[in-house]
Every structure is written in structure tokens, then in C-alpha cells.
């Protein structure tokens, strides 16, 4: 992962004790005691222990764990719905746990929108008024907040429902209102607390897709809580895995799947449909050799012979993929006394983005035997995937 991206929220050494003598509980923790022993000795619950992670600007970070792992506590510490016991949460230079009452209000208004598991819509307000809530609290002028809220409702597909009351809507639609309320607020971070967990599975999948689409458009920094690994793998740019109030692993979905940090994670990921998660990138190999557009046909053919391959990808100076040169075509170019190879390229090959699911690649191999090119958004050649590598990757993942 690109570690140089700007950090939006920095969490360092965050702990939370539920009880009246938190110091004592933390002392025991420092002596190496775990949650159950601390509970037995002091009657206090160690909700979170020494949590550190970063949330990068614009990423969708999933905090995942089973019930009791502390994930709900953690997200509530971020905007201080729950006070922390020790540690730092820094957002844009402000340390949230030490803010005064006024500064905290200001910080919540500027930085945080929140979407709740059971929607938490205001039953006495219309859909429109619900969407306006955050803006109303901030004192945004009426006509302005109405139009912003209207746009937010449009974004989540609720145009025409402005005057309905929440109890007239289905669960999925209610959560769209919750999402619109958060989007309208235009805070810099979106907190989603098990936002889709109360929805039935089909609606849930839809909402995940829509969130991803919104996310690709808006690039809003998002912290998403879930207990569902599939959901985490599906939507997360990165995942923070919690267990008993401690971080077990932080990584991309692929890292979690392919390099589980310990047995706990390994057990956790059993039963995940791997082929859906593994992507072209994980099976990709670096290209052993390519031809340049300025190369003559002889040079290109020579390279193919050297690497005993019968086709070669051709790129320009910026590694932008121009086409594929087959050995036959190269021979014909030599006969035709061509100076360069650019006129003899074929476009009859497959290229995919790095995040293309592996299972889609299977179908492509049945059509052509060329390695599949993996290109980024600028059409630069990142690597190739050969048939055997896909099978290898799947088999390896299956064994774990």
C-alpha cells in the first residue's frame, strides 16, 4: 500500500476502560493481563487496548470484528460519543480526546457525519427534514440547506420522497435517508456504524455497490464498521481487524486473505469465496520482456526467441501499451522491409485493470492463449497474467 498518502485521522495508543478506576485496569493491562482477568480482578471491562492505525485521506477503511471486539466503541471514540481513557486521535492537527466542549461540537460539525445501524432517523421529521438535520444544526440558511439536502436525496435515489416520514419507508430506503443525511452534511469523514447490517442480504449487496460507486465519485474518507468479513472484503480499501479490543491485523483485503497474521485471522477467512476476492494483481507476474515502438522487427523477433515466446507486448517510452506483436507478424514485417513494428501490431488480446476478479480471467483464457495484460488507468503495462498463474493462486489460497 502507498504509505505516503496524506493521513486524515491518526489513532495512537487508544484505550478505553468501562469502569470507575480505569487507571488500575490499564496498570494490569501493562502487566500483561488480558480482558477476562482484568474483568475478574477489577470488575471493569477493557473495551479497547492500545489501538493504533491511520485513516488515509479518501480511503474506505473497514474496521471489522465480531461482537465484543470493540469496533462500535472504537468508532464512537473517533467522534467522542464515548470518552476515551488514554491515547490520541488526531484529525487535522486537533487531538479529539482533549478538546473542550465547544471545540468538540465544532469538530464534530466540521469533520464527522455518521450513519447508524438502525438508521436513527428522526420520526417526527420528514425525509427532507432528516436530510437537512446536520446543516440545520450548523445554522445553514434554510433555502441553501433545502437545496443541498435535495441533492443528497437525489444522489441516493430518493427523489420524490422528500415529504414522506421515515416510518413510511422500507428499511433499505430508510438507510438511504441516513446516508443522505450524512452526505448532505459534507463533513470530511463519514462514519458508518454497521450501516448495512440491519438490511436483508440482497438490499445489502445493492447498498454496498452504491456506496462503492458514490465512493469512486466522491473519494470521501470513510470509516466503516462491520462484523461481516464478506462485506469488509467487498468494500474496504484496507481492513483493520479487531479481536477482544486489540488490533490483530491491518491490511488490504488481499493481504488479509493471502497473508493472515495469525491463526485467528486464518480461521476467520475460512469460508470466504476466494476467487471472488483475489484479483488480477495477485496473480500478475512482471513482464519479462517487452518491445518498444521504435524497435525494428528484427530486434523484436530476437527478443521473442531469447525468451522463447511467440508474441510480445509493445509499449511506448512511458510504458503505455500500444499492442501485441506476434512472431508471424514480425517475420512478415521483416519480409516487407518495414523500419518499425508499429504497423504490424494486433489489438486482438485481452487487457484488464489490476482489480479485476480472478474468476473473470478464466473465461478470457478460453478465447486466446496470450497472457492477459494488466494495465492501469493510463494504459501503462503493469504486468501479465498467464493461465497457470491463475490456477496456482487459487489452489494456494484454497489450501490455507
Amino acid at each position: 500500500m502507498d504509505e505516503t498518502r496524506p493521513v486524515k485521522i491518526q489513532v495512537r495508543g487508544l484505550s478505553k476502560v468501562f469502569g470507575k478506576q480505569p487507571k488500575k485496569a490499564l496498570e494490569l493491562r501493562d502487566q500483561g493481563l488480558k480482558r477476562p482477568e482484568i474483568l475478574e480482578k477489577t470488575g471493569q471491562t477493557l473495551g479497547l487496548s492500545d489501538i493504533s492505525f491511520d485513516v488515509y485521506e479518501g480511503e474506505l477503511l473497514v474496521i471489522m470484528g465480531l461482537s465484543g471486539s470493540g469496533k462500535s466503541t472504537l468508532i464512537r471514540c473517533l467522534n467522542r460519543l464515548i470518552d476515551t481513557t488514554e491515547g490520541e486521535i488526531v484529525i487535522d492537527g486537533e487531538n479529539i480526546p482533549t478538546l473542550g466542549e465547544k471545540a468538540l461540537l465544532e469538530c464534530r460539525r466540521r469533520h464527522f457525519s455518521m450513519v447508524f445501524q438502525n438508521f436513527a432517523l428522526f420520526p417526527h421529521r420528514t425525509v427532507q427534514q432528516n436530510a437537512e438535520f446536520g446543516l440545520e444544526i450548523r445554522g445553514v440558511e434554510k433555502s441553501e440547506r433545502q437545496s443541498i439536502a435535495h441533492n443528497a436525496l437525489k444522489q441516493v435515489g430518493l427523489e420524490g420522497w422528500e415529504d414522506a416520514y421515515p416510518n413510511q419507508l422500507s428499511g433499505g430506503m430508510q438507510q438511504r435517508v441516513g446516508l443522505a443525511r450524512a452526505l448532505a452534511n459534507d463533513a470530511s469523514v463519514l462514519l458508518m456504524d454497521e450501516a448495512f447490517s440491519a438490511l436483508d442480504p440482497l438490499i445489502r449487496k445493492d447498498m454496498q455497490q452504491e456506496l462503492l460507486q458514490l465512493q469512486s465519485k466522491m473519494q470521501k474518507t470513510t470509516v466503516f464498521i462491520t462484523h461481516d468479513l464478506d462485506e469488509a472484503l467487498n468494500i474496504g480499501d484496507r481492513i483493520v481487524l479487531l479481536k477482544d479490543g486489540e488490533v490483530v491485523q491491518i491490511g488490504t483485503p488481499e493481504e488479509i486473505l493471502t497473508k493472515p497474521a495469525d491463526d485467528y485471522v486464518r480461521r476467520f477467512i475460512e469460508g470466504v469465496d476466494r476467487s471472488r476476492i483475489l484479483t488480477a494483481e495477485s496473480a500478475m507476474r512482471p513482464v519479462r520482456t517487452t518491445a518498444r515502438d521504435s524497435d525494428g522487427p528484427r530486434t523484436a523477433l530476437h527478443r521473442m526467441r531469447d525468451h522463447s515466446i511467440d508474441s510480445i507486448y509493445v509499449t511506448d517510452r512511458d510504458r503505455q501499451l500500444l499492442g501485441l506483436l506476434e512472431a508471424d507478424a514480425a517475420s512478415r514485417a521483416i519480409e516487407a522491409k518495414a523500419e518499425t513494428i508499429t504497423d504490424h501490431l494486433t489489438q486482438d488480446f485481452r487487457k484488464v485493470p489490476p482489480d479485476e476478479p480472478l474468476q473473470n480471467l478464466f473465461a478470457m483464457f478460453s478465447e486466446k492463449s496470450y497472457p492477459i495484460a494488466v494495465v492501469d488507468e493510463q494504459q501503462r503495462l503493469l504486468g501479465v497474467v498467464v493461465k497457470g498463474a491463475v490456477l496456482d493462486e487459487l489452489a494456494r489460497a484454497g489450501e490455507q
Partner: protein
Amino acid sequence: MEITRIPLGSWIESGLTWLTSEYSVVTRGISRVTQTGINSLNDGLMWLPEWALLAIIALLCWKLASTRLAIGAVAGLALIWNLGLWNPMIETLTLVVIATLVAVVIALPVGIAAALSERLYRVIMPVLDFMQTMPAFVYLIPAIPFFGIGSVSAIFATVIFSMPPAIRFTTLGIRQVPVELIEASDAYGATRGQKLFKVQLPLSLPTVMAGINQTIMLALSMVVIAAMIGADGLGSEVWRAIQRLRPGDGFEAGIAVVILAMLLDRLTQSLRKSRRS
């Protein structure tokens, strides 16, 4: 061994005497203001011809509640008019309205404060228990030295007796607002005031209205009893019937009280239901 009797009664008496003499300026002031209020409301309602007031009430019932209630109101009020109990009914209504207003004005802020502060809640709840379980007649006795015989004393006793449900229901209503909604308003950076007026109060309104309904009912029962210390109205009709041993008159006045009670109850309940839940 003989245990000395604790002179609880005489302590309370001397306390009351002290209060009466020390604060006579205050009590007299309250008395004057309240009496003026009672008189003007009475005069206003009586200035209207019977049929006009009847029409207004019927219209109110029809608008706020149902046609059925409007018809019932017309029939009931016409009966009271026919029995010659119109003016006592107005006097009773006045006492109920003023006592309820005073009770609600005190009860709402107290109820809100008790809902928001755990400490205040713990102090106020036993006080409310005391106010509600103390036999209602007892309030009549200190009322007299404070405000003299008559309607002002009746209002004083009635306010004390009828206020607890309004406080309790207000507190309950606010405490019943789901934690999630409180979290939601906190998460969006609402101040305490914004939370109270935009979320907690609107959501507790149905419960608060139920409390006010209870207060009105208690106030009605108390102003009738307050006839014993000289309050005017239907109560004094009943009181007179008892003294003269005329059960017929007593029942007539009693039925008028029942009609008034039902009317007030249905009307306030419909107010509560007409709000969206």
C-alpha cells in the same frame, strides 16, 4: 419508660405561621394577581351568551376531534344549561383552566430539568410521591392562612395536587427518547439546546400531552373538593346539596362535573393523537 411524643404537628404549624407572616407581601401579591385572572376569565366566559360559547366549544371539538364529540358536547352542555348550572360550570372551568396553566408552566421546566439531571431526578421523585399521596384535603388547610377563603386558595391546592403527573410524564417522555437518536444529534454536533428543542421535546410531546391530560383531570376533581374552602362552581353546588340533604341537586351538579370532565378529557386526548407519531 415513656417516649415523648414528637410534636411534628406543632412544628409544621409554627413553620406555616412563620411563612405566612414573613411572606404575607408575596402571598397577598399572588392572591391579587390570581384573583384578577380568575375574575377576568370568568367575566369573559360569562359575557358570551350561552349559545355562543356552546357553539364555539362544539366547533373546537369538531375541528380538533370528531363530529361525534361535537354532538356529545352540544348535548352535554345543553343539559347543563337546562339544569341552570351554566354559571357554576363556567366558574369550575375557569378554575381548572387557570390551575392547569400554572401547573404546566411550573411542571414543564421542572420535568425537563429532572430528565436531564440524574441528581435532580432523585430529589424530585420522592417530593412528587409526597405531593400525590398526601390526602388532597390537607392542602386546603394551609391554603387558607396563605390566601384566605375562596378561589385563590382553591387554585393553590389544586396546582400542588395536579402538578405531579405533568412533571412525571415530561421526565418520562424525555428519558424515553431512544439513545440512538440522542447519539445521532450528538454526532452531528448539536448543542444541548438544539438537542432539547429539535429532538427530545418534539419526540416526548405525546407523553407530555398525556401528562397534561392527567393534570386537567386531577385539577377538575380538586376544584370540586375545594368548594369546602369556599371555591365557587359546581363543587359548591354539591356542597350545598350535602348540607341541605338534597340528593337530587347533588346528582345534578355531579353529572355536570362528569360532562365537563369527559369533554376536557376527550378534547385533550384528541390533541395528543392528532400529532404524528
